[in-house]
């Protein structure tokens, strides 16, 4: 019963690699480029060009691939489920002889497969870069980076600091919640609710029992956190100064340019 084994969302795994040591702002910018690229790139050749760069990031980061894949099982399963619908209910134009199989409104067509394939790659690409960003960047760096990037918007009375704070707390709460669910599941198993046995449906029904205590502890935790911040006179935004200043080095910029050029090529070349 180790749920954390299967969830990597919001986790930070410090291997001390080069990617980990990069400036958080540059990593955020690179992620942004990747996200834009995932929308612009529209065919298999483009994604094939992107692939080596992702392999490179994976190798350099020293995050074990098995850990990443096991933690992504839930996501991948869900994606396959969605894509199956995308293929079977494809409503776009299908050229002559493009149908491989057809039954009433359900069909499998080459055009449908192609669209689903591109969509799948796009989503996986998006998922990979955002997951990777969190795996290689600590929440402190992520917060500081975001605040520095969006800080200027505060002039326009946008509560940048508060928004980022909420965002970061939300991410931080995910692993805490998983731990909480795990603790509850263990304690209830000990009392005779077998969380570790039975089929998918009976397991899902048992999870329902955890909802009330999870909500209660969630609110209690949020309450505690806000009290703690008040008592320590937390004040966000421009009133805060940082002990650790972020510094970019030339290699950071070089990598940013490299990624930008690489993505432009993947978009325009095919």
């Amino acid at each position, binding site marked *: *019963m180790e749920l954390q084994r299967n969830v990597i969302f919001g986790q930070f795994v410090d*291997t001390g690699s080069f990617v980990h040591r990069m400036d958080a702002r540059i990593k955020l910018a690179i992620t942004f480029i990747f996200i834009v690229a995932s929308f612009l790139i529209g065919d298999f050749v483009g994604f094939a060009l992107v692939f080596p760069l992702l392999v490179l990031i994976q190798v350099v980061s020293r995050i074990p691939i098995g*850990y990443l894949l096991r933690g992504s099982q839930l996501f991948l399963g869900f994606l396959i489920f969605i894509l199956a619908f995308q293929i079977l209910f494809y409503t776009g134009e299908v050229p002559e002889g493009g149908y491989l199989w057809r039954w009433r409104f359900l069909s499998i067509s080459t055009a449908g497969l192609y669209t689903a394939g591109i969509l799948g790659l796009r989503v996986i690409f998006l998922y990979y870069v955002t997951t990777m960003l969190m795996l290689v960047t600590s929440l402190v760096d992520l917060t500081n980076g975001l605040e520095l990037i969006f800080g200027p918007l505060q002039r326009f009375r946008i509560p940048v600091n508060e928004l980022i704070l909420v965002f970061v707390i939300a991410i931080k709460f995910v692993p805490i919640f998983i731990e909480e669910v795990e603790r*509850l599941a*263990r304690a209830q198993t000990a009392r*005779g609710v077998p969380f570790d046995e039975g089929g998918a449906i009976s397991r899902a029904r048992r999870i329902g029992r955890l909802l009330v205590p999870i909500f209660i*502890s969630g609110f209690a935790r949020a309450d505690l956190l806000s009290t703690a911040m008040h008592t320590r006179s937390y004040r966000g935004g421009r009133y805060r100064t940082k002990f650790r200043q972020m510094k970019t080095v030339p290699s950071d910029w070089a990598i940013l340019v490299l990624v930008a050029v690489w993505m432009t090529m993947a978009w325009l070349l095919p």
Partner: protein
Amino acid sequence: MQAAGGTPVIELRNFEYTYLEGTPRASEAIRDVSFGIQRGERVGIVGPTQSGKSTIIDSFVHLLRLKPDQVFYDGEDVAASGYDRGRLRREIGIVFQQPDSQIIENVVGADVAFGPTAAGLSAKETRERVEESLNTLGLPYPDFRLRYVHALSGGQRRRVAIAGVLAMHTPVLVLDEPMAGLDPRGRKELLELLTRLQRDRDLTLIVCSASLTDASLLCDRFIVLEEGTVVMDGPVREVLKEADRLAELDITLPEPVIGAREMRKLFPDFPTELLTEDELEAELVKRIGAA
């Protein structure tokens, strides 16, 4: 108490455990732990935080990813395939550190009834068990059976959690930090209750704690843990003789033992294996009289 020989009711053999093994976030909890607990024994598993107490408790009823040949109940490997875990969990009752986590239903009566119902008892028997357990814990059945659990105080919720486990009539009772968060009166009541229960029902009692104060009055034997290994294992008084070593481990010593350690400054051979203040006093009177 201690039945020499025979199959231990719970036995750990070279137990080792690492959380999230095989991932970058792996953390070693238990390095190498072996001990056996006989039926009817009253054992205190003590050690500082992070010493592995809770992991050991979880292992008793197979709440972890156990490997075979490490944890045994009545001589049977609980990690063997086809082992009846449901039965195991009806034999060993655990009161966890945070009582809230093990309360399943929203209403007190329903929660205490959960275990007996799941074990297949009739409605009448279940009702009797619930009434008995709640009354035993000082939560009068007519007043409390329809109360909403989340509206109770922390101390009351702990008692509900204990009642829920007692209602199972398990031959083995395990408590993780049972005294945490209780006021002195609550502690005294719980101590008396557990002593009485253990005697009346001939329970095997296992108490986990980072404080020896309550455990020393409740147990006959201490298993002392540090960083996932057993550093001492023996009768309470034998373990208390090595008070200096215990103090080094960051374990809270019983008051009389703390007093005795102070007395050692005057009388270097002052014994530390004292359980009550009366014993300390008697020893002191003896020494002063002699001097």
